[in-house]
């Protein structure tokens, strides 16, 4: 057992205000050396504000109050310049989406070297040696010469980690470190983070993903709408939650969803035959066949970059396949295939009120407005939301409005590209349940693209796993789905 070390960071009654409104807090926590805290909360719960308040990087109109102590030193009373001097030396951060935090025009090695040289103030030679050691220990050999844009998400996250921890800051704050990573890379980043407390550092991880918390352990703090609702050892909190919100959050985990029973479907609405898809001269998908039935839910899974979205766009008729044919059922109207997007605000014209966008669709298709409001109320969208612009509505609600918009034109097929990956667990479950119900009631065939196997397993009638590209094979052709490196379409119960 590790001996509990000194208190590394302690936060008392931390609150963040905009004007007179409290956005976050009060929250309290203490993390010892070798300790770990996971802050769990839905998107918009103010999780990132906590990190910014601790660092002192809050946006101009925001204000923080409360005691922040790092290694016995009060931070909140320090001048901004003195606080900045602690960055990288006492406090390090691993920001969201690392490829955005790295300098896009600088190769990986100099980014880490720079941190060794100027933050830990090593002489050039020692900094070089230290950099090489870091790259070796993080398994980044070969990545030194690449620009961040050429690195995979997991690699970029490790380079960012190497740069952030170069000066040996004992406290690491990680803000949604796994966002946008697929399952495999997810696990790698979590084990990377777990090394911090093992080395005697203190780790604060902010996430909306229960799986991350479950893997990391340590202490957990549950946030809801900026307020702390529960705190305690992660295992206890996740196994026997005491507050209704935490219970709801845990039940929303895809692993706990009700399994979908396989079903027999008869009427086919889309037939794709031996599709070959290439993009930028690279073969992404070879010999892909799919027969989609009315009311059926199909999930396409696979690591990022495998061509899931490209496949979806090809099925939607937005891209031409290099080979093969796609046939739609004759009863489908030209608008019979609709699509849901990953980032709901990006799926609406940004400066137009939602009511205006929906009215346009209704008018063009001669649908009575009463019918649209009826669909909206069935999906649980409050009519007052329609007076707002897309940026002013929460992601979950906007995704429901975009489902309503798609239903207005009575589609036969709904293609969903990671529709819930930016939503918090509870909203995610509600949205996916909603889609499942719509598929059943309206007999709409749905194709879900996701990197989350748990969702695919729980939600879909049928799963298709896309793996590494380039070897043409398909289960029907006699290859073994388990070992097939490219693609295995297997039916799951």
């Amino acid at each position: 057992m590790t001996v509990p070390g000194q208190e590394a960071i302690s936060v008392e009654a931390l609150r963040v205000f905009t004007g007179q409104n409290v956005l976050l807090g009060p929250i309290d926590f203490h993390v010892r050396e070798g300790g770990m805290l996971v802050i769990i909360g839905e998107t918009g719960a103010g999780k990132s504000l906590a990190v910014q308040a601790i660092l002192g990087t809050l946006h101009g109109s925001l204000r923080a109050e409360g005691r922040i102590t790092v290694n016995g030193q009060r931070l909140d009373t320090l001048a901004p310049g003195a606080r900045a001097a602690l960055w990288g030396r006492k406090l390090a951060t691993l920001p969201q989406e690392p490829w955005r935090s790295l300098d896009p025009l600088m190769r990986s090695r100099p980014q880490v070297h720079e941190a060794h040289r100027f933050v830990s103030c090593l002489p050039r030679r020692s900094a070089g040696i230290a950099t090489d050691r870091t790259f070796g220990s993080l398994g980044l050999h070969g990545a030194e010469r690449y620009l961040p844009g050429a690195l995979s998400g997991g690699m970029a996250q490790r380079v960012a980690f190497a740069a952030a921890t170069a000066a040996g800051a004992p406290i690491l704050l990680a803000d949604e470190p796994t966002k946008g990573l697929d399952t495999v890379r997810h696990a790698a980043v979590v084990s990377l983070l777990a090394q911090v407390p093992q080395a005697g550092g203190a780790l604060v991880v902010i996430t909306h993903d229960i799986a991350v918390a479950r893997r990391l352990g340590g202490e957990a703090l549950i946030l809801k709408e900026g307020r702390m609702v529960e705190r305690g050892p992660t295992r206890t909190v996740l196994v026997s939650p005491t507050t209704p919100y935490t219970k709801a959050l845990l039940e929303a985990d895809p692993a706990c969803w009700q399994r979908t029973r396989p079903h027999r479907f008869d009427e086919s609405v889309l037939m794709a035959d031996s599709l070959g898809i290439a993009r930028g001269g690279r073969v992404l998908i070879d010999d892909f066949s799919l027969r989609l039935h009315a009311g059926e839910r199909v999930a396409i899974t696979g690591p990022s970059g495998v061509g899931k979205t490209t496949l979806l766009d090809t099925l939607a008729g937005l891209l031409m396949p290099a080979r093969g044919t796609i046939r739609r059922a004759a009863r489908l109207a030209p608008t019979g295939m609709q699509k849901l997007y990953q980032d709901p605000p990006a799926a609406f014209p940004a400066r137009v009120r939602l009511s205006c966008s929906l009215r346009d669709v209704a008018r063009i298709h001669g649908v009575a407005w009463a019918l649209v409001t009826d669909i909206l109320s069935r999906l649980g969208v409050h009519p007052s939301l329609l007076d707002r612009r897309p940026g002013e509505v929460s992601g979950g609600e906007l995704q429901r409005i975009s489902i309503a918009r798609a239903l207005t034109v009575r589609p036969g097929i709904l293609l969903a590209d990671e529709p819930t990956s930016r939503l918090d667990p509870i909203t995610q479950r509600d949205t996916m349940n909603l889609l499942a119900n719509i598929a059943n009631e309206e007999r709409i065939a749905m194709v879900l693209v996701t990197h989350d196997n748990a969702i695919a397993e729980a939600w879909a009638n049928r799963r298709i796993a896309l793996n590494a590209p380039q070897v043409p094979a398909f289960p029907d052709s006699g290859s073994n789905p388990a070992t097939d490196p490219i693609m295995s379409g297997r039916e799951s119960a």
Partner: protein
Amino acid sequence: MSAHRARPQAKRPSLDGGRILGLTLLGLLTLAAVVGPDLVGQDPARQSLLEALQGPSGRHLLGTDHLGRDMAARLLSGAQLSLFLAGLSTVTAALPGTLLGIVAAWFGGWPDRLLTAFADAVLALPGLLLVLMLAAISPGSWWALYTGISLTLWVEYFRYTRQRARVVLAEPAVEASQLLGIGPWMIVRRHLMPEIGPGILTIAAFGAATAVTAVAALGFVSVGIRPPTAEWGVMMTELLPYWRESPFLILQPVACLFMTVLALHLSVGGGVRP
């Protein structure tokens, strides 16, 4: 609380003090140019050598120039000319510039390359040279000036629109609208115009200011509008020799030009916010 990735949104131009001042000034100038000449009731071209270089009086509100012509009438008629030319050249530059920008962004491929190459070629040619060439074909005519100025100004609208439209048209929102059966016209209206409109207005205000200055500058160096037409630049040239005797006279067209350009620049509003 909005709970997702912030999308870069250009700030809606708010009505700050400078903007109100600019718009008011612009409104007053336009009003003066439209109804002013009738109110003054003097012929801007009528000479009366006996009344030359007089100060302000009841009969001549702003005095008379070296040929005894009424200054107020001449300034107002100059304002008419300048604002008309500026307005006309702004509209005829903005419309094709914006439309071609949308066309280039929408179709991409060879139409885009062709239009961009053409715009670059126009940009490579100094605007002044173009105006001088046209002025040489038809000396002193207003349409040569107008054509030259429009031909120079449209490139800016084209480049701005093409750049913004490429970004907007690549958004999933446009794809979603297309899948929903929404036609190109509505996509331009709902997706594109709200995004590029404020920028176009800004370019238009600065472009109009450029046009006003260009007309005056060309008049001043006797390439543009010719005497006896009352034009601010021409008036400055004519009154320059008399600035010692009556500095008040030459100050008048200078002040008019200054105010017009100031009003146009202020009307854009905003400026750099912290």
